Protein backbone atom coordinates (compact mmCIF):
# COMPACT_ATOMS: atom_id res chain seq x y z
CA UNK A 1 0.00 0.00 0.00
CA UNK A 2 1.47 3.32 -1.05
CA UNK A 3 1.97 6.21 1.27
CA UNK A 4 -0.48 8.29 -0.69
CA UNK A 5 -3.21 5.72 -0.33
CA UNK A 6 -2.43 5.25 3.33
CA UNK A 7 -2.79 8.95 3.91
CA UNK A 8 -6.03 8.97 1.96
CA UNK A 9 -7.48 6.20 4.11
CA UNK A 10 -6.43 7.90 7.31
CA UNK A 11 -7.85 11.15 6.07
CA UNK A 12 -11.18 9.53 5.29
CA UNK A 13 -11.35 7.78 8.62
CA UNK A 14 -10.53 10.82 10.68
CA UNK A 15 -13.83 12.70 10.85
CA UNK A 16 -15.70 9.51 11.67
CA UNK A 17 -13.71 6.82 13.38
CA UNK A 18 -11.08 9.36 14.38
CA UNK A 19 -13.53 11.50 16.30
CA UNK A 20 -15.04 8.43 17.93
CA UNK A 21 -11.66 7.27 19.12
CA UNK A 22 -10.79 10.79 20.21
CA UNK A 23 -13.93 11.26 22.22
CA UNK A 24 -14.10 7.87 23.83
CA UNK A 25 -10.36 7.70 24.29
CA UNK A 26 -10.26 11.07 25.99
CA UNK A 27 -13.21 10.27 28.17
CA UNK A 28 -11.66 7.04 29.37
CA UNK A 29 -8.28 8.69 29.79
CA UNK A 30 -9.70 11.49 31.89
CA UNK A 31 -11.73 9.09 33.96
CA UNK A 32 -8.70 6.97 34.74
CA UNK A 33 -6.47 9.96 35.36
CA UNK A 34 -8.94 11.69 37.61
CA UNK A 35 -9.31 8.56 39.60
CA UNK A 36 -5.61 8.80 40.33
CA UNK A 37 -5.74 12.42 41.30
CA UNK A 38 -4.83 14.17 38.07
CA UNK A 39 -6.75 16.85 36.25
CA UNK A 40 -8.19 18.12 39.46
CA UNK A 41 -10.84 20.72 38.89
CA UNK A 42 -10.74 22.18 42.36
CA UNK A 43 -7.40 21.63 43.94
CA UNK A 44 -3.95 20.43 43.10
CA UNK A 45 -3.34 17.76 40.53
CA UNK A 46 -0.96 15.12 41.67
CA UNK A 47 -0.76 11.38 41.51
CA UNK A 48 -2.44 9.69 44.41
CA UNK A 49 -3.93 6.32 45.09
CA UNK A 50 -5.72 7.85 48.01
CA UNK A 51 -9.03 8.06 46.24
CA UNK A 52 -8.95 4.41 45.34
CA UNK A 53 -7.93 3.22 48.79
CA UNK A 54 -10.57 5.38 50.43
CA UNK A 55 -13.29 4.24 48.11
CA UNK A 56 -12.51 0.57 48.37
CA UNK A 57 -12.94 0.85 52.11
CA UNK A 58 -16.34 2.47 51.86
CA UNK A 59 -19.31 0.25 52.55
CA UNK A 60 -21.54 2.14 50.21
CA UNK A 61 -19.15 1.45 47.35
CA UNK A 62 -19.09 -2.28 47.99
CA UNK A 63 -22.84 -2.37 48.27
CA UNK A 64 -23.24 -0.47 45.02
CA UNK A 65 -20.99 -2.90 43.23
CA UNK A 66 -22.91 -5.87 44.53
CA UNK A 67 -26.20 -4.23 43.76
CA UNK A 68 -25.30 -3.20 40.22
CA UNK A 69 -23.93 -6.62 39.41
CA UNK A 70 -27.05 -8.21 40.86
CA UNK A 71 -29.23 -6.03 38.63
CA UNK A 72 -27.02 -6.55 35.60
CA UNK A 73 -26.81 -10.31 35.80
CA UNK A 74 -30.45 -10.93 36.64
CA UNK A 75 -31.70 -8.53 33.96
CA UNK A 76 -29.61 -10.27 31.35
CA UNK A 77 -30.70 -13.73 32.45
CA UNK A 78 -34.40 -12.90 32.73
CA UNK A 79 -34.49 -11.09 29.41
CA UNK A 80 -32.81 -13.90 27.54
CA UNK A 81 -34.70 -16.64 29.37
CA UNK A 82 -38.00 -15.00 28.42
CA UNK A 83 -36.93 -14.24 24.89
CA UNK A 84 -35.85 -17.76 23.96
CA UNK A 85 -39.20 -19.53 24.21
CA UNK A 86 -40.86 -16.58 22.50
CA UNK A 87 -38.33 -16.63 19.66
CA UNK A 88 -38.82 -20.36 19.21
CA UNK A 89 -42.59 -20.00 19.27
CA UNK A 90 -42.46 -17.24 16.67
CA UNK A 91 -40.02 -19.12 14.49
CA UNK A 92 -42.53 -20.14 11.87
CA UNK A 93 -45.20 -17.63 10.86
CA UNK A 94 -48.75 -18.41 11.88
CA UNK A 95 -51.97 -16.42 12.09
CA UNK A 96 -51.25 -13.42 14.29
CA UNK A 97 -47.53 -14.00 14.68
CA UNK A 98 -46.66 -10.66 13.09
CA UNK A 99 -48.97 -8.86 15.48
CA UNK A 100 -47.51 -10.62 18.47
CA UNK A 101 -44.00 -9.86 17.28
CA UNK A 102 -44.83 -6.17 16.93
CA UNK A 103 -46.50 -5.99 20.33
CA UNK A 104 -43.60 -7.74 22.02
CA UNK A 105 -41.13 -5.37 20.41
CA UNK A 106 -43.12 -2.27 21.34
CA UNK A 107 -41.12 -1.52 24.51
CA UNK A 108 -38.15 -0.75 22.30
CA UNK A 109 -39.98 2.38 21.26
CA UNK A 110 -40.63 3.57 24.77
CA UNK A 111 -38.09 5.77 26.49
CA UNK A 112 -36.67 4.41 29.73
CA UNK A 113 -37.90 7.32 31.81
CA UNK A 114 -41.37 7.02 30.35
CA UNK A 115 -41.38 3.31 31.09
CA UNK A 116 -40.33 3.99 34.66
CA UNK A 117 -43.07 6.56 35.05
CA UNK A 118 -45.76 4.32 33.58
CA UNK A 119 -44.71 1.48 35.83
CA UNK A 120 -44.54 3.58 38.97
CA UNK A 121 -47.92 5.01 38.08
CA UNK A 122 -49.48 1.57 37.83
CA UNK A 123 -48.04 0.24 41.07
CA UNK A 124 -48.43 3.42 43.07
CA UNK A 125 -50.21 3.46 46.39
CA UNK A 126 -53.53 4.44 44.86
CA UNK A 127 -52.71 3.11 41.46
CA UNK A 128 -54.62 0.66 39.40
CA UNK A 129 -52.82 -2.45 40.57
CA UNK A 130 -53.61 -1.76 44.19
CA UNK A 131 -57.20 -0.94 43.28
CA UNK A 132 -57.50 -4.15 41.27
CA UNK A 133 -56.15 -6.35 44.04
CA UNK A 134 -58.48 -4.78 46.55
CA UNK A 135 -61.41 -5.16 44.19
CA UNK A 136 -60.60 -8.87 43.83
CA UNK A 137 -60.51 -9.10 47.58
CA UNK A 138 -56.97 -10.42 47.73
CA UNK A 139 -55.75 -7.37 49.65
CA UNK A 140 -57.75 -5.56 52.26
CA UNK A 141 -55.86 -2.31 51.94
CA UNK A 142 -53.41 -0.76 49.50
CA UNK A 143 -49.80 -1.85 49.76
CA UNK A 144 -46.71 0.16 49.23
CA UNK A 145 -45.08 -1.46 46.24
CA UNK A 146 -42.85 1.32 45.05
CA UNK A 147 -39.14 1.45 45.67
CA UNK A 148 -39.12 -2.02 47.18
CA UNK A 149 -35.88 -3.05 48.84
CA UNK A 150 -35.34 -6.07 46.63
CA UNK A 151 -35.42 -3.95 43.50
CA UNK A 152 -38.11 -6.07 41.90
CA UNK A 153 -39.40 -2.92 40.21
CA UNK A 154 -36.05 -2.26 38.62
CA UNK A 155 -35.72 -5.86 37.51
CA UNK A 156 -39.20 -5.86 36.02
CA UNK A 157 -38.48 -2.61 34.19
CA UNK A 158 -35.15 -3.87 32.91
CA UNK A 159 -36.71 -7.08 31.67
CA UNK A 160 -39.62 -5.18 30.12
CA UNK A 161 -37.24 -2.89 28.26
CA UNK A 162 -34.60 -5.43 27.30
CA UNK A 163 -36.52 -8.57 26.47
CA UNK A 164 -37.58 -7.18 23.09
CA UNK A 165 -33.97 -6.53 22.24
CA UNK A 166 -33.01 -10.08 23.13
CA UNK A 167 -36.04 -11.27 21.15
CA UNK A 168 -34.83 -9.34 18.13
CA UNK A 169 -31.40 -10.94 18.21
CA UNK A 170 -32.63 -14.41 19.02
CA UNK A 171 -35.42 -14.44 16.43
CA UNK A 172 -32.91 -13.95 13.65
CA UNK A 173 -30.68 -16.65 15.03
CA UNK A 174 -33.46 -19.15 15.61
CA UNK A 175 -34.94 -18.61 12.16
CA UNK A 176 -31.61 -19.35 10.57
CA UNK A 177 -31.80 -22.95 11.75
CA UNK A 178 -33.21 -25.00 8.90
CA UNK A 179 -36.42 -26.92 9.43
CA UNK A 180 -34.79 -30.10 8.21
CA UNK A 181 -32.20 -30.03 10.97
CA UNK A 182 -34.89 -29.71 13.63
CA UNK A 183 -37.00 -32.39 11.96
CA UNK A 184 -33.96 -34.67 11.88
CA UNK A 185 -33.47 -34.17 15.61
CA UNK A 186 -37.11 -35.00 16.18
CA UNK A 187 -36.90 -38.05 13.98
CA UNK A 188 -33.90 -39.28 15.97
CA UNK A 189 -35.92 -39.15 19.15
CA UNK A 190 -35.37 -35.67 20.57
CA UNK A 191 -38.34 -34.12 22.36
CA UNK A 192 -38.87 -30.35 22.78
CA UNK A 193 -36.39 -29.84 25.61
CA UNK A 194 -33.70 -31.97 23.99
CA UNK A 195 -34.15 -30.20 20.69
CA UNK A 196 -33.56 -26.91 22.49
CA UNK A 197 -30.61 -28.07 24.51
CA UNK A 198 -28.82 -30.03 21.85
CA UNK A 199 -29.65 -28.22 18.61
CA UNK A 200 -31.18 -24.76 19.03
CA UNK A 201 -29.06 -23.49 21.92
CA UNK A 202 -25.66 -24.46 20.48
CA UNK A 203 -26.58 -23.02 17.11
CA UNK A 204 -27.79 -19.69 18.49
CA UNK A 205 -25.15 -19.17 21.07
CA UNK A 206 -23.38 -16.16 19.61
CA UNK A 207 -26.63 -14.21 19.37
CA UNK A 208 -27.46 -15.18 22.92
CA UNK A 209 -24.07 -14.05 24.14
CA UNK A 210 -24.36 -10.75 22.29
CA UNK A 211 -27.77 -10.15 23.84
CA UNK A 212 -26.60 -11.02 27.34
CA UNK A 213 -23.50 -8.86 27.13
CA UNK A 214 -25.29 -5.81 25.79
CA UNK A 215 -28.14 -6.10 28.26
CA UNK A 216 -25.69 -6.67 31.13
CA UNK A 217 -23.66 -3.58 30.29
CA UNK A 218 -26.79 -1.47 30.02
CA UNK A 219 -28.32 -2.77 33.24
CA UNK A 220 -25.13 -2.57 35.28
CA UNK A 221 -24.77 1.09 34.30
CA UNK A 222 -28.42 1.98 34.83
CA UNK A 223 -29.30 5.33 36.32
CA UNK A 224 -32.88 6.23 35.35
CA UNK A 225 -34.73 3.13 36.52
CA UNK A 226 -32.82 3.07 39.74
CA UNK A 227 -33.48 6.68 40.58
CA UNK A 228 -37.19 6.50 39.86
CA UNK A 229 -38.23 3.03 40.86
CA UNK A 230 -35.32 1.58 42.76
CA UNK A 231 -34.78 0.92 46.45
CA UNK A 232 -33.93 3.99 48.47
CA UNK A 233 -31.34 2.34 50.64
CA UNK A 234 -29.12 1.22 47.79
CA UNK A 235 -27.43 3.08 45.00
CA UNK A 236 -26.43 1.87 41.60
CA UNK A 237 -22.88 2.62 40.50
CA UNK A 238 -24.03 5.27 38.03
CA UNK A 239 -26.13 6.89 40.69
CA UNK A 240 -23.20 6.91 43.07
CA UNK A 241 -20.96 8.37 40.43
CA UNK A 242 -23.40 11.18 39.62
CA UNK A 243 -23.84 12.03 43.28
CA UNK A 244 -20.07 12.35 43.79
CA UNK A 245 -19.84 14.59 40.77
CA UNK A 246 -22.74 16.66 42.05
CA UNK A 247 -20.79 17.25 45.26
CA UNK A 248 -17.79 18.35 43.26
CA UNK A 249 -15.78 15.28 44.21
CA UNK A 250 -14.62 14.45 40.71
CA UNK A 251 -11.91 12.10 41.83
CA UNK A 252 -14.21 9.79 43.72
CA UNK A 253 -16.65 9.96 40.83
CA UNK A 254 -13.79 8.87 38.58
CA UNK A 255 -12.98 5.94 40.81
CA UNK A 256 -16.56 4.77 40.64
CA UNK A 257 -16.64 5.37 36.90
CA UNK A 258 -13.51 3.37 36.18
CA UNK A 259 -14.75 0.59 38.43
CA UNK A 260 -18.01 0.56 36.54
CA UNK A 261 -16.21 0.24 33.22
CA UNK A 262 -14.05 -2.58 34.49
CA UNK A 263 -17.02 -4.41 35.95
CA UNK A 264 -18.89 -4.00 32.69
CA UNK A 265 -15.98 -5.43 30.71
CA UNK A 266 -14.98 -8.23 33.03
CA UNK A 267 -18.56 -9.10 33.86
CA UNK A 268 -19.48 -9.37 30.18
CA UNK A 269 -16.57 -11.66 29.49
CA UNK A 270 -17.45 -13.91 32.42
CA UNK A 271 -21.13 -13.95 31.52
CA UNK A 272 -20.37 -14.82 27.91
CA UNK A 273 -18.02 -17.61 28.92
CA UNK A 274 -20.40 -19.07 31.47
CA UNK A 275 -23.26 -18.98 29.00
CA UNK A 276 -21.16 -20.80 26.46
CA UNK A 277 -20.12 -23.48 28.91
CA UNK A 278 -23.63 -24.14 30.11
CA UNK A 279 -25.16 -24.23 26.67
CA UNK A 280 -22.47 -26.07 24.87
CA UNK A 281 -21.03 -28.24 27.58
CA UNK A 282 -17.50 -27.31 26.66
CA UNK A 283 -15.55 -24.29 25.49
CA UNK A 284 -14.95 -24.37 21.77
Amino acid at each position, binding site marked *: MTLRRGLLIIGLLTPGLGLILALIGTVVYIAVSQSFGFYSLNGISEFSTEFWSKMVGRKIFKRSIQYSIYIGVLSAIFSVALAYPLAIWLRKPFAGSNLIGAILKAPLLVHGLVAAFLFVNVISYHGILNQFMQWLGIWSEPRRLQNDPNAYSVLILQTWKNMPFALLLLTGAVQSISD*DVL*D*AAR*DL*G*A*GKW*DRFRRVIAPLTISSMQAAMVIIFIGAVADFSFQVIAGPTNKQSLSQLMVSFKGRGDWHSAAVVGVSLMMIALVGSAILAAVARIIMRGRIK
Partner: protein
Amino acid sequence: MVAIDIEHLSKKFGDFTALSDVSIDVQPKEFVTLLGPSGCGKTTLLKLISGFLEPTDGVIKIGGLDVTHVPPEKRDTALCFQSYALFPHLTVKENLEFGPRQKKVSSSERKARIDDVSEKLDLTAQLDKLPNQLSGGQQQRVSLGRALTMRPSVILFDEPLSNLDAKLRDQVRIEIRRIQKEYGLTAIYVTHDQAEALSMSDRIVVLNDGRVEQVDSPEQLYYAPKTRFVADFIGDANIFPGEVVGAISNGLWQVETGIGSFSVTALEAPKTKSVSLCWRPESAIIDTSGIKAKVVHRAFQGHFTDLIVETNETSYRVQTKRTDAQEGDIIQFLVSPDEVILLDKDT
Protein backbone atom coordinates in the same frame (compact mmCIF):
# COMPACT_ATOMS: atom_id res chain seq x y z
CA MET B 1 -46.28 -60.09 10.46
CA VAL B 2 -46.38 -57.20 8.07
CA ALA B 3 -43.75 -54.51 8.70
CA ILE B 4 -45.88 -51.55 7.68
CA ASP B 5 -49.64 -51.67 7.32
CA ILE B 6 -51.33 -48.65 5.79
CA GLU B 7 -55.11 -48.74 5.64
CA HIS B 8 -57.31 -46.26 3.81
CA LEU B 9 -55.00 -43.37 4.49
CA SER B 10 -56.09 -39.89 3.40
CA LYS B 11 -54.63 -36.45 3.91
CA LYS B 12 -56.37 -33.19 3.16
CA PHE B 13 -54.92 -29.71 3.48
CA GLY B 14 -57.99 -27.51 3.68
CA ASP B 15 -59.73 -28.08 0.34
CA PHE B 16 -56.78 -29.77 -1.29
CA THR B 17 -56.61 -33.56 -1.14
CA ALA B 18 -53.00 -34.70 -1.13
CA LEU B 19 -53.71 -38.39 -0.64
CA SER B 20 -56.91 -40.35 -0.89
CA ASP B 21 -57.65 -43.86 0.23
CA VAL B 22 -54.14 -45.30 0.13
CA SER B 23 -53.74 -48.85 1.37
CA ILE B 24 -50.38 -50.63 1.22
CA ASP B 25 -48.71 -53.55 2.97
CA VAL B 26 -44.94 -53.64 3.28
CA GLN B 27 -43.20 -56.89 4.21
CA PRO B 28 -40.21 -57.00 6.55
CA LYS B 29 -36.85 -56.44 4.82
CA GLU B 30 -38.64 -55.24 1.70
CA PHE B 31 -37.38 -52.26 -0.31
CA VAL B 32 -40.43 -50.34 -1.49
CA THR B 33 -40.23 -47.21 -3.60
CA LEU B 34 -42.88 -44.52 -3.77
CA LEU B 35 -42.70 -43.26 -7.33
CA GLY B 36 -44.58 -40.54 -9.13
CA PRO B 37 -44.41 -37.07 -10.65
CA SER B 38 -44.19 -33.86 -8.58
CA GLY B 39 -47.28 -33.31 -6.52
CA CYS B 40 -48.42 -36.92 -6.63
CA GLY B 41 -48.38 -37.26 -2.86
CA LYS B 42 -45.29 -39.42 -2.35
CA THR B 43 -43.56 -36.97 0.00
CA THR B 44 -46.83 -36.51 1.91
CA LEU B 45 -47.08 -40.27 2.31
CA LEU B 46 -43.51 -40.45 3.55
CA LYS B 47 -44.18 -37.69 6.08
CA LEU B 48 -47.25 -39.56 7.27
CA ILE B 49 -45.23 -42.74 7.77
CA SER B 50 -42.46 -40.90 9.60
CA GLY B 51 -44.95 -39.01 11.74
CA PHE B 52 -44.37 -35.42 10.66
CA LEU B 53 -47.93 -35.21 9.38
CA GLU B 54 -51.07 -36.64 10.87
CA PRO B 55 -53.58 -38.27 8.53
CA THR B 56 -57.08 -36.92 8.03
CA ASP B 57 -58.34 -40.48 7.83
CA GLY B 58 -56.99 -43.97 8.04
CA VAL B 59 -54.58 -46.02 10.09
CA ILE B 60 -50.82 -46.64 10.01
CA LYS B 61 -49.35 -49.62 11.80
CA ILE B 62 -45.64 -50.30 12.15
CA GLY B 63 -44.66 -53.73 13.38
CA GLY B 64 -48.25 -54.36 14.36
CA LEU B 65 -48.44 -51.25 16.59
CA ASP B 66 -50.89 -48.50 15.72
CA VAL B 67 -48.73 -45.40 15.31
CA THR B 68 -51.27 -43.18 13.58
CA HIS B 69 -51.10 -40.53 16.29
CA VAL B 70 -47.60 -41.17 17.59
CA PRO B 71 -45.16 -38.23 17.11
CA PRO B 72 -41.95 -38.76 15.09
CA GLU B 73 -39.67 -38.78 18.13
CA LYS B 74 -41.47 -41.81 19.47
CA ARG B 75 -41.79 -43.81 16.25
CA ASP B 76 -39.31 -46.48 15.40
CA THR B 77 -38.53 -44.92 12.03
CA ALA B 78 -35.41 -43.12 10.79
CA LEU B 79 -35.46 -40.62 7.95
CA CYS B 80 -32.71 -39.72 5.48
CA PHE B 81 -33.36 -36.18 4.31
CA GLN B 82 -32.89 -34.83 0.80
CA SER B 83 -30.80 -32.01 2.26
CA TYR B 84 -28.97 -34.46 4.59
CA ALA B 85 -29.88 -32.20 7.56
CA LEU B 86 -26.64 -32.95 9.38
CA PHE B 87 -26.18 -31.09 12.68
CA PRO B 88 -23.71 -28.40 11.64
CA HIS B 89 -22.25 -27.92 15.11
CA LEU B 90 -21.53 -31.61 15.73
CA THR B 91 -18.75 -33.78 14.33
CA VAL B 92 -19.54 -36.80 12.18
CA LYS B 93 -19.12 -39.03 15.21
CA GLU B 94 -21.47 -36.89 17.30
CA ASN B 95 -23.98 -36.80 14.46
CA LEU B 96 -23.93 -40.59 14.29
CA GLU B 97 -24.25 -40.77 18.05
CA PHE B 98 -27.20 -38.44 18.34
CA GLY B 99 -29.99 -40.97 17.89
CA PRO B 100 -28.56 -43.74 20.13
CA ARG B 101 -27.84 -41.16 22.83
CA GLN B 102 -31.45 -40.05 22.76
CA LYS B 103 -32.49 -43.68 23.12
CA LYS B 104 -30.14 -43.98 26.11
CA VAL B 105 -28.11 -46.74 24.50
CA SER B 106 -25.05 -47.65 26.62
CA SER B 107 -21.79 -46.07 25.57
CA SER B 108 -20.12 -49.36 24.71
CA GLU B 109 -23.04 -50.33 22.48
CA ARG B 110 -22.97 -46.85 20.93
CA LYS B 111 -19.30 -47.19 20.13
CA ALA B 112 -19.90 -50.63 18.60
CA ARG B 113 -22.66 -49.28 16.36
CA ILE B 114 -20.62 -46.28 15.25
CA ASP B 115 -17.58 -48.41 14.47
CA ASP B 116 -19.72 -50.81 12.49
CA VAL B 117 -21.52 -48.14 10.49
CA SER B 118 -18.44 -46.01 9.82
CA GLU B 119 -16.62 -49.06 8.55
CA LYS B 120 -19.43 -50.15 6.26
CA LEU B 121 -19.87 -46.62 4.91
CA ASP B 122 -16.17 -45.80 4.77
CA LEU B 123 -16.45 -42.90 7.17
CA THR B 124 -13.77 -43.90 9.71
CA ALA B 125 -11.37 -41.20 8.50
CA GLN B 126 -14.09 -38.55 8.73
CA LEU B 127 -15.30 -39.15 12.27
CA ASP B 128 -13.79 -36.01 13.78
CA LYS B 129 -14.69 -33.65 10.98
CA LEU B 130 -17.54 -31.17 10.90
CA PRO B 131 -20.19 -31.43 8.18
CA ASN B 132 -18.95 -28.37 6.33
CA GLN B 133 -15.62 -30.09 5.83
CA LEU B 134 -17.18 -33.01 3.97
CA SER B 135 -17.96 -33.52 0.30
CA GLY B 136 -21.56 -34.03 -0.86
CA GLY B 137 -21.14 -37.77 -1.14
CA GLN B 138 -19.62 -38.02 2.34
CA GLN B 139 -22.44 -35.96 3.82
CA GLN B 140 -24.91 -38.31 2.16
CA ARG B 141 -23.24 -41.25 3.80
CA VAL B 142 -23.26 -39.60 7.22
CA SER B 143 -26.97 -38.95 6.78
CA LEU B 144 -27.46 -42.64 6.00
CA GLY B 145 -25.17 -43.70 8.84
CA ARG B 146 -27.07 -41.54 11.30
CA ALA B 147 -30.26 -43.39 10.45
CA LEU B 148 -28.52 -46.77 10.63
CA THR B 149 -27.08 -46.31 14.11
CA MET B 150 -30.65 -46.03 15.31
CA ARG B 151 -31.31 -49.64 14.22
CA PRO B 152 -34.83 -48.62 13.27
CA SER B 153 -37.56 -51.01 12.18
CA VAL B 154 -38.16 -48.88 9.14
CA ILE B 155 -35.72 -46.66 7.28
CA LEU B 156 -37.14 -43.89 5.10
CA PHE B 157 -35.47 -42.07 2.23
CA ASP B 158 -36.63 -38.71 0.91
CA GLU B 159 -35.05 -38.36 -2.57
CA PRO B 160 -31.57 -38.74 -1.05
CA LEU B 161 -29.71 -38.76 -4.35
CA SER B 162 -31.12 -35.64 -5.97
CA ASN B 163 -28.28 -33.38 -4.78
CA LEU B 164 -25.53 -35.64 -6.10
CA ASP B 165 -23.98 -35.60 -9.54
CA ALA B 166 -24.88 -38.38 -11.94
CA LYS B 167 -21.80 -40.57 -11.46
CA LEU B 168 -21.99 -40.45 -7.68
CA ARG B 169 -25.66 -41.20 -7.86
CA ASP B 170 -25.08 -44.58 -9.46
CA GLN B 171 -22.49 -45.49 -6.85
CA VAL B 172 -24.56 -44.44 -3.89
CA ARG B 173 -27.63 -46.17 -5.27
CA ILE B 174 -25.80 -49.47 -5.18
CA GLU B 175 -24.43 -48.73 -1.72
CA ILE B 176 -27.82 -47.95 -0.25
CA ARG B 177 -29.29 -51.18 -1.56
CA ARG B 178 -26.32 -53.15 -0.31
CA ILE B 179 -26.54 -51.68 3.18
CA GLN B 180 -30.28 -52.23 3.31
CA LYS B 181 -29.81 -55.90 2.48
CA GLU B 182 -26.92 -56.31 4.90
CA TYR B 183 -28.79 -54.84 7.83
CA GLY B 184 -32.04 -56.48 6.78
CA LEU B 185 -33.97 -53.21 7.07
CA THR B 186 -37.42 -52.46 5.78
CA ALA B 187 -37.00 -49.46 3.50
CA ILE B 188 -39.36 -46.92 1.99
CA TYR B 189 -37.74 -44.84 -0.71
CA VAL B 190 -39.20 -41.76 -2.39
CA THR B 191 -38.09 -40.67 -5.84
CA HIS B 192 -39.41 -39.21 -9.06
CA ASP B 193 -36.62 -40.91 -11.06
CA GLN B 194 -38.03 -44.10 -12.53
CA ALA B 195 -34.62 -45.51 -13.44
CA GLU B 196 -33.68 -45.33 -9.76
CA ALA B 197 -36.94 -46.95 -8.74
CA LEU B 198 -36.67 -49.76 -11.26
CA SER B 199 -33.09 -50.62 -10.36
CA MET B 200 -33.38 -50.57 -6.58
CA SER B 201 -36.80 -51.79 -5.55
CA ASP B 202 -38.44 -55.03 -4.57
CA ARG B 203 -41.77 -53.37 -5.24
CA ILE B 204 -42.83 -49.96 -6.48
CA VAL B 205 -45.91 -47.96 -5.46
CA VAL B 206 -46.81 -45.73 -8.38
CA LEU B 207 -48.75 -42.66 -7.24
CA ASN B 208 -50.59 -40.09 -9.27
CA ASP B 209 -52.64 -37.20 -7.95
CA GLY B 210 -52.87 -38.64 -4.47
CA ARG B 211 -54.00 -42.08 -5.57
CA VAL B 212 -52.24 -45.41 -5.92
CA GLU B 213 -52.11 -46.42 -9.58
CA GLN B 214 -50.40 -49.74 -9.18
CA VAL B 215 -48.24 -51.62 -6.68
CA ASP B 216 -46.02 -54.28 -8.21
CA SER B 217 -42.46 -55.44 -8.80
CA PRO B 218 -40.49 -53.41 -11.34
CA GLU B 219 -40.76 -56.16 -13.95
CA GLN B 220 -44.50 -56.44 -13.56
CA LEU B 221 -44.92 -52.69 -13.79
CA TYR B 222 -42.86 -52.60 -16.94
CA TYR B 223 -44.32 -55.56 -18.76
CA ALA B 224 -47.85 -55.50 -17.37
CA PRO B 225 -48.90 -51.96 -16.55
CA LYS B 226 -52.53 -51.78 -15.53
CA THR B 227 -53.27 -48.16 -16.28
CA ARG B 228 -52.39 -45.71 -18.99
CA PHE B 229 -50.54 -43.56 -16.48
CA VAL B 230 -48.28 -46.41 -15.36
CA ALA B 231 -47.64 -47.50 -18.92
CA ASP B 232 -46.63 -43.97 -19.85
CA PHE B 233 -44.72 -43.08 -16.71
CA ILE B 234 -42.49 -46.14 -16.59
CA GLY B 235 -40.55 -46.46 -19.77
CA ASP B 236 -41.97 -45.33 -23.08
CA ALA B 237 -45.28 -46.52 -24.38
CA ASN B 238 -47.31 -46.17 -27.51
CA ILE B 239 -50.95 -46.15 -26.51
CA PHE B 240 -53.84 -46.45 -28.98
CA PRO B 241 -57.57 -46.74 -28.58
CA GLY B 242 -59.05 -49.70 -30.41
CA GLU B 243 -62.00 -52.06 -30.91
CA VAL B 244 -61.94 -55.78 -30.20
CA VAL B 245 -62.81 -57.49 -33.47
CA GLY B 246 -62.90 -61.04 -32.21
CA ALA B 247 -60.96 -64.00 -30.89
CA ILE B 248 -58.37 -65.50 -33.20
CA SER B 249 -57.81 -68.56 -31.04
CA ASN B 250 -57.85 -69.45 -27.36
CA GLY B 251 -56.29 -66.54 -25.50
CA LEU B 252 -55.48 -64.58 -28.66
CA TRP B 253 -57.59 -61.63 -29.68
CA GLN B 254 -57.61 -59.28 -32.61
CA VAL B 255 -57.89 -55.57 -31.97
CA GLU B 256 -58.35 -52.93 -34.64
CA THR B 257 -56.70 -49.55 -33.99
CA GLY B 258 -56.25 -46.37 -35.96
CA ILE B 259 -52.87 -47.48 -37.26
CA GLY B 260 -53.63 -51.10 -37.97
CA SER B 261 -54.56 -54.47 -36.57
CA PHE B 262 -52.85 -56.08 -33.58
CA SER B 263 -53.01 -59.56 -32.08
CA VAL B 264 -53.08 -59.53 -28.30
CA THR B 265 -52.59 -62.36 -25.81
CA ALA B 266 -54.98 -62.04 -22.93
CA LEU B 267 -55.86 -64.64 -20.31
CA GLU B 268 -59.35 -63.30 -19.85
CA ALA B 269 -61.70 -61.97 -22.48
CA PRO B 270 -61.62 -58.19 -22.71
CA LYS B 271 -64.53 -56.84 -20.72
CA THR B 272 -65.59 -54.19 -23.22
CA LYS B 273 -65.40 -53.88 -26.95
CA SER B 274 -63.57 -50.53 -26.76
CA VAL B 275 -60.11 -50.96 -25.32
CA SER B 276 -56.81 -49.13 -24.96
CA LEU B 277 -53.82 -51.05 -26.11
CA CYS B 278 -50.17 -50.26 -25.64
CA TRP B 279 -46.78 -51.60 -26.57
CA ARG B 280 -43.19 -50.49 -25.91
CA PRO B 281 -41.25 -48.94 -28.81
CA GLU B 282 -38.52 -51.56 -28.51
CA SER B 283 -41.10 -54.33 -29.05
CA ALA B 284 -41.42 -53.41 -32.72
CA ILE B 285 -39.69 -55.90 -35.03
CA ILE B 286 -38.93 -54.63 -38.52
CA ASP B 287 -40.48 -57.13 -40.98
CA THR B 288 -41.60 -57.14 -44.57
CA SER B 289 -45.20 -57.76 -43.49
CA GLY B 290 -46.93 -55.82 -40.78
CA ILE B 291 -47.96 -52.25 -40.19
CA LYS B 292 -46.66 -49.64 -42.59
CA ALA B 293 -45.20 -46.46 -41.18
CA LYS B 294 -43.32 -43.49 -42.60
CA VAL B 295 -40.15 -42.40 -40.77
CA VAL B 296 -40.52 -38.78 -39.77
CA HIS B 297 -37.48 -38.41 -37.53
CA ARG B 298 -34.41 -40.58 -36.93
CA ALA B 299 -32.02 -40.46 -33.97
CA PHE B 300 -29.11 -42.85 -33.76
CA GLN B 301 -28.52 -43.71 -30.12
CA GLY B 302 -25.65 -46.16 -30.35
CA HIS B 303 -27.17 -49.39 -29.14
CA PHE B 304 -30.45 -48.67 -30.90
CA THR B 305 -32.01 -46.21 -33.31
CA ASP B 306 -34.93 -44.14 -32.17
CA LEU B 307 -37.50 -43.54 -34.89
CA ILE B 308 -40.54 -41.30 -34.81
CA VAL B 309 -42.92 -42.71 -37.39
CA GLU B 310 -46.34 -41.85 -38.73
CA THR B 311 -49.28 -43.99 -39.80
CA ASN B 312 -52.60 -42.47 -40.81
CA GLU B 313 -51.47 -39.13 -39.38
CA THR B 314 -50.79 -40.61 -35.96
CA SER B 315 -47.20 -40.39 -34.83
CA TYR B 316 -45.58 -42.80 -32.42
CA ARG B 317 -42.20 -44.22 -31.52
CA VAL B 318 -40.28 -47.27 -32.69
CA GLN B 319 -36.86 -48.42 -31.46
CA THR B 320 -34.80 -50.88 -33.48
CA LYS B 321 -31.24 -52.18 -33.70
CA ARG B 322 -31.40 -51.83 -37.48
CA THR B 323 -29.87 -48.67 -38.83
CA ASP B 324 -30.99 -48.75 -42.47
CA ALA B 325 -34.21 -46.76 -42.06
CA GLN B 326 -33.80 -43.11 -43.04
CA GLU B 327 -36.12 -40.17 -42.79
CA GLY B 328 -38.79 -40.37 -45.47
CA ASP B 329 -38.56 -44.17 -45.83
CA ILE B 330 -41.54 -46.43 -45.31
CA ILE B 331 -40.88 -49.23 -42.85
CA GLN B 332 -43.02 -52.20 -41.84
CA PHE B 333 -43.03 -53.77 -38.40
CA LEU B 334 -44.73 -56.36 -36.22
CA VAL B 335 -45.30 -56.54 -32.51
CA SER B 336 -45.40 -59.91 -30.84
CA PRO B 337 -48.82 -60.54 -29.26
CA ASP B 338 -47.21 -61.22 -25.87
CA GLU B 339 -45.82 -57.75 -25.83
CA VAL B 340 -49.07 -55.98 -26.54
CA ILE B 341 -50.80 -54.92 -23.35
CA LEU B 342 -54.47 -54.24 -22.84
CA LEU B 343 -55.06 -51.41 -20.39
CA ASP B 344 -58.10 -50.75 -18.25
CA LYS B 345 -60.30 -48.66 -20.52
CA ASP B 346 -61.19 -45.85 -18.26
CA THR B 347 -57.59 -44.76 -17.91
